[in-house]
């Protein structure tokens, strides 16, 4: 045999998992929500999503190729995930120029300034979204109502989101009063579940997001710790508020299904790079997000707080990683 033997350190066997497969797994998990949003918002949703995804990929490529001068890694799929998530927290009538700006901030500032994939402290999509939200509050807070493919872009009906209605009416009226007021046209539980209401692209259809969660759990892309701890915390916290004063608060179920809570808890808080690594840490992180979300929703000026909550807890992630170590084998001896 003339071929030389290969020598490498053990192990010699590798699993089939790869970064790319994980990222495309997230994309697949986002697909049901994407289909739902296209169903409700028609072409507008498709345009915003594709502009966001394509510009994220292009910005990543350009920055890596010409500024960082490293081999572009756009095929790993992380830019697609960022693009999709960014689009999912934008309203369907946002002008493409703003979407592109958001993508630039998300990839350029949120990701590449820190050294690219794996090094960013904050979820890039949320950095882009928060930038747009603070810079263009008017465009970012008018959501068209669902009109399907027949709706025209220009004069789509816009409406307030259920959370902003709630925000204005805390301490004034309970959820049942608000829901029975025809003038407010608050969506009912069914609309919330299926997504037939106004809102950002990805946050309307609860069922589609839950399908995505199921897929990611089955494929073991994520573990249950973060989404479950967030949703449980929100349920408990809003449940206490609701039980204490039902006439002034919305019930937990309504809170769970409105706004970007599910999208955030399932897809954004679980971003590998910006979430803690030990199971204990994940639960602390999730609980923190849940608490901050409810605090902002109920007591803050903004109707929605998931994105801010995630960004705030992102900042705590390194600290959590330092103090929340996994249980070492043989650390405390309990024999039996």
């Amino acid at each position: 045999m003339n071929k030389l033997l290969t020598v490498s350190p053990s192990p010699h066997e590798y699993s089939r998992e790869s970064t790319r497969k994980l990222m495309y797994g997230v994309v697949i998990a986002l697909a049901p929500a994407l289909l739902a949003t296209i169903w409700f918002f028609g072409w507008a949703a498709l345009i915003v999503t594709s502009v966001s995804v394509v510009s994220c990929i292009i910005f990543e490529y350009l920055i890596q190729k010409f500024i960082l001068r490293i081999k572009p890694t756009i095929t790993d799929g992380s830019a697609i995930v960022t693009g999709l998530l960014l689009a999912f927290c934008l309203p369907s009538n946002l002008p493409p120029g703003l979407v592109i700006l958001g993508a630039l901030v998300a990839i350029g500032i949120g990701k590449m300034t820190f050294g690219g994939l794996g090094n960013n402290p904050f979820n890039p999509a949320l950095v882009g979204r928060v930038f747009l939200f603070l810079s263009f509050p008017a465009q970012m807070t008018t959501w068209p109502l669902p009109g399907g493919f027949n709706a025209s872009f220009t004069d789509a009906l816009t409406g307030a989101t259920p959370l902003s209605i709630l925000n204005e009416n805390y301490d004034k009226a309970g959820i049942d009063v608000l829901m029975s007021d025809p003038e407010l046209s608050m969506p009912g539980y069914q609309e919330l579940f299926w997504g037939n209401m106004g809102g950002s692209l990805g946050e309307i259809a609860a069922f589609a997001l839950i399908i995505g969660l199921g897929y990611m759990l089955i494929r073991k892309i994520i573990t249950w710790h973060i989404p479950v701890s967030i949703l449980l915390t929100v349920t408990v916290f809003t449940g206490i508020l609701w039980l204490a004063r039902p006439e002034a608060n919305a019930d937990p179920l309504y809170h769970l299904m409105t706004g970007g809570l599910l999208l955030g808890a399932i897809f954004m808080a679980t971003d590998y790079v910006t979430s803690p690594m030990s199971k204990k840490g994940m639960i602390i992180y999730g609980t923190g997000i849940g608490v901050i979300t409810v605090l902002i929703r109920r007591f803050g000026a903004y109707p929605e707080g998931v994105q801010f909550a995630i960004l705030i807890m992102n900042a705590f992630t390194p600290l959590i990683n330092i103090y929340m170590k996994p249980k070492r084998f043989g650390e405390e001896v309990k024999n039996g």
Partner: protein
Amino acid sequence: MLKTFPKGGVHPPENKISSGVPIEAMPLPEQVIIPVNQHLGAPAEAVVEKGETVKAGQIIARSKGFVSANIHSSVSGKVLKVDKMPDASGYKQTSVVINVEGDEWLETVDRSKELKKNISLSGEEIIKKCAENGIVGMGGATFPSHVKLSIPQGKKCDVLIINGVECEPYLTSDHRLMIEKPEELLTGTSLLMKALGVNRAFIGIENNKKDAIDKLKGLASSYDGISIHALKVKYPQGAEKQLIKALINREVPSGGLPVDVGTVVHNAGTAFAVYEAVQKNKPLVERVVTVSGKGLDKTLNLLARIGTPVSKLIEYAGGLPESTAKVVNGGPMMGKALGSLEVPVTKGTSGIIIFRDEESRRKEKGPCIRCARCISVCPMGLEPYLLMTLTEKELYERAEKDRIMDCMECGSCSFTCPANRPLLDYIRLGKAYVGKIIRERKQK
């Protein structure tokens, strides 16, 4: 629910291709190379010289110190030289090279196939026999068995564990031994129990070896105190600490030994070797080696003499296929890749695995995406990603605090990393540096 260890672990493809192939005695090679250091601890000292004639079973290197083991000639013939020869890592170390002439054994060795079940010796005599006959752990760590059997003062041992897990993919040598020599193995277990003075022994076997479990279960009833336990298939269950946790739910403290929790673990292959050493007075001069790989036409379980060059084993299995890229000494998770095939089979060689090109090549590494998979698979509860970073940045004190020395190098982290990061490579490096720092500190 089958028992297993609770934290971490992976499930690599089992690939136990050779599990149905009976053990076959390998024909004698023309020359054997027997290194004097085949065990953990101090190397033995060669006691033969160039030109001397030796018989199979004759001692050729005597143990130096307590943690060391005797080395015996595995063949009869003439000593060609006592010189530095490359071992499995390619580094040269003192070895005895013997030209084979005939197959003449020492008269004291009982080579009959007859089963000897009665135990006539006392515990101490059994330990002495093990030491004399150079018995070491056959699972791969090659720790001298007599050391393990001598319980330090103040420690107590109440249960013996026999490791029949064989969690490494491909390897089937212990599996075949359990099927083909069950009585010998159980007698060996009884001998070990007597040596340790315990009245309970657990034999742990992974559930992918149902035939071995059934066979041993059927026979174990006639042996006092031995029970057979099926375990869930999970790597690295064969690791001592994980096996103890799985079988008797005791956790060996960090930096401690199994005896700290009242148990001693021996490999199934070791139990068989102990039987031969004590009942038949046969030194450890041959062992079962699995020769396997997807590219091979036939896979084998060979009973090979210690010192047989690996190339002879492969030749016997039909030669290296054209597609070969890597030859691994041991299992695919912890074994060492060989740079040359002219290296000998030693007491710790459990298998020779042949990998094809596409199976063995490392993939390009990417940045860490902090998916935390390495943490969730680490059976020792460590953070491999962190240990790698700390080593890269030369922060050895922090690495020590984060328990880098607890790592047993099972490779689950590198196996599972989706970004193909060389986690274990760096952790091993960090361990070497931290170990040096600890030794220096102790000397002060």
